[in-house]
């Protein structure tokens, strides 16, 4: 009974507190809306006056942007992001499309073929191809010569080892070099 009396007495107070809270929330919401509208209006005004352009020009002309970019590039995360971007299928597809497009355009370009003909007929290219051919032949010849000379020495050592076993000691090894 006492509890019922207390509840009866407190109820108006609780109702008034709820009313006050609702009013506070409504006030805050309206104030926020007004602040947002005011901010947007200020930004619109600044854009209309060209302040944003001036800020962008100032940033691009000054050293700050370079410093910011340099600092950003020093971060390890940037490299990671760039690697992920490069490895992403979207970028890969884009690169492949660009390359295909460029190759197709080059193939259709008469100027490109004229340039290729010009280069192919140039004496320097002919000389380079000739030099390359001689170089390869020389390389093969050198290799054969070197191997055969090693084989000469090996065979000779083997022969003399065999002879020393069967012939009396004192026989000198053959001289592989001397005056003619």
């Amino acid at each position, binding site marked *: 009974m006492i509890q019922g009396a207390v509840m009866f007495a407190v109820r108006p107070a609780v109702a008034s507190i709820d009313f006050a809270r609702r009013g506070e929330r409504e006030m805050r919401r309206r104030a926020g809306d007004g602040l947002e509208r005011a901010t947007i209006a200020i930004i619109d005004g600044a854009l209309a006056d060209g302040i944003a352009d001036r800020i962008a020009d100032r940033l691009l002309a000054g050293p700050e942007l370079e410093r910011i970019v340099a600092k950003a590039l020093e971060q390890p995360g940037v490299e990671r992001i760039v690697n992920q971007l490069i490895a992403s299928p979207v970028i890969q597809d884009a690169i492949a499309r660009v390359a295909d497009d460029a190759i197709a355009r080059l193939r259709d370009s008469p100027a490109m073929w004229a340039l290729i003909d010009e280069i192919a007929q140039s004496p*320097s290219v002919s000389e380079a191809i000739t030099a390359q051919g001689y170089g390869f032949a020389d390389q093969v*010849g*050198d290799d054969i*010569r070197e191997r055969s*000379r090693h084989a000469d020495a090996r065979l000779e050592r083997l022969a003399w080892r065999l002879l020393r076993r069967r012939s009396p000691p004192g026989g000198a090894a053959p*001289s592989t070099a*001397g005056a*003619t």
Partner: protein
Amino acid sequence: MTEYAGLATRTVAFAVDAAIINLVAWGVAAVVALGLSLLKVPDDVVTVMAVIGAVIAVGWAISYFAYFWSATGQTPGDRLLGIQVVQAGGGEPPHLGRAVVRVLCLPLAAIPLCAGFLMILVDRRRRALQDVVVGTVVIYVREPEPVPTHVPVGSAKALH
């Protein structure tokens, strides 16, 4: 200082020369055989032509070695392997007569189980039987200077 060519190098050079000689001989023989196949030739004539062909083939092989040895001291095989046949005394290529005798000595060197060639392994100047008979030695030729491979491609003049 002269270095004398050893058995392996000389064998490879000889194999290259033998390949060239045989390729040419087989090519000529194939052309002749194709030509004869179109004609009706009696068997006796074919036999005679085969004998003549064999004689020509032997002559061709002898001429090949004799010509190259007496001209420059190097057959194509020798040139590939970088060796040269020279007279033991002077370093000049052998004369044509000596070159022919040298060729004819090749079978003599081969007959006793190639002992005439195996002399190379034990002779101080790496001479085979044919070298001892005609007084020649086979030496390594000094390596030629490498061909320059750098070409100034970037210059504008080079394109015209």
